[in-house]
């Protein structure tokens, strides 16, 4: 039915085993205004990056191999489309201001060396199992070993989920923040009826 031998081998070669537990705890809960982020998305929709999950020449070979493996088993623009803001330096700066210095302190992230991206996943779309290449951050700041955080910028709704290895993250409250450990495989999906808004904050720890 689906030729997932390449994806399986990729995980096997890296000893990725779902039966091994990886502890993931909530880092903190930020004090943020959800409407500000939704308004930002709607106001700046014309400048958003709209992409689906596929290989691209500016991504590293690991990331692209994962994308090739995912495309091979049926992931495409119909089920992986993401709208995001933050790669534009103006948007990155604005999103940092919306988060605020007190929240960067809570996260332990240096705002001057961070990349914030606001992600919008519409119903029926997902981000397939992958590990992060952090290419966007590295392009801006070089190889600084950043921390990647997931931040919920709206209260949880049915069908909104994130899996971090063997942890399903759901039922979140506004501002809940989790560390996505390096090289840990994760996936997310929106099978509800409302858009899913989250942030990824990638930055150097203070």
């Amino acid at each position, binding site marked *: *039915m*689906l030729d*997932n031998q390449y*994806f*399986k081998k990729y*995980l096997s070669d890296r000893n990725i085993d*779902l039966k091994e537990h990886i502890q993931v705890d909530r880092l903190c809960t930020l004090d943020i205004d959800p409407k500000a982020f939704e308004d930002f998305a*709607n106001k700046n929709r014309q400048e958003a990056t*709209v992409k*689906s999950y596929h290989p691209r020449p500016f991504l590293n070979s690991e990331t692209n191999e994962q994308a090739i*493996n*995912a495309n091979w*088993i*049926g*992931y*495409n*623009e*119909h*089920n*992986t*489309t993401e709208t995001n803001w933050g790669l534009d330096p103006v948007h990155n700066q604005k999103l940092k201001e919306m988060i605020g210095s007190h929240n960067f302190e809570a996260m332990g992230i240096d705002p001057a060396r961070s990349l914030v991206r606001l992600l919008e996943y*519409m*119903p*029926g*779309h*997902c*981000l*397939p*199992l992958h590990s992060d290449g952090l290419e966007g951050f590295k392009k801006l700041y070089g190889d600084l070993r950043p921390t990647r955080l997931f931040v919920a910028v709206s*209260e*949880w*709704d*049915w*069908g909104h*989920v994130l*899996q971090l290895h*063997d*942890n*399903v993250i*759901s*039922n979140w*409250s506004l501002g809940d923040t989790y560390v996505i450990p390096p090289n840990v*495989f994760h*996936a*997310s*999906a*929106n*099978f*509800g*009826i*409302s*858009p899913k808004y989250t942030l990824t904050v990638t930055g150097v720890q203070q």
Partner: protein
Amino acid sequence: MKLKHPISEKRLDPKGAVPKEILEQYPWHWNPMEQNHTDGNHFMRNIDFDWKGLGDWAVQKCNEHLTPQKYWRFDYDEDAIYHAKENVNDMPIKEQAFLAFKNNTHTPENSQYFKIANEEFEHWQEPLMKMFPNLKEDKMGISLFVQPPGHTMFTHVDTYSSFIRRTGDAKADYTVLRRYMAFVRDWDFGHFFHYGNHCFSQWRAGDCWDLVPGIYHGSANAGLNPKITIHWSGELKDVG
């Protein structure tokens, strides 16, 4: 991909799309932020069965034709929701499906699944039918769903459309209907299922849940292996 419609500025409330009789007969909290709930209390038991054999057989059956039989499609010209090739505007799922597909982004390309039902189970049918002696045999339906990676089942309340279609009943009597669900394979990467405010993980093949009517649920597969579930639907013997 440019959206063909604006995103709703107000949160879509699915409760209003659920048939009134289900809301009346099965009151539920209808609040995704509710923490004081019992949505995770409907686990029944782990059923001992050759789940590996059934799962492998089901995948082989799908591989014989490679075409998911089921998907959802909204036809804007007709203002109609289709489940595969069937217009289901006259089915009680209509309003919920409209929320997900009309001016929304669930599509035929992300809602596909394979289905094996009833006599299609061949030699598996008899032992599967015996698993729930509390359901009337003459109206019991068994369906196995294989959800490929990249596909979702939109959040919904069961309205038993397949049961109505199979039995020929004019409408469903939700006071006597019941659905049970078992996972055919162990939990895997990217396999999501929520039942109300309870989000599942770590399930084992054979884990069986009582899908009490009236609770909002859905599923997705963002992993690399198919997600397989089996469902028994029918009328309870000791009710009504």
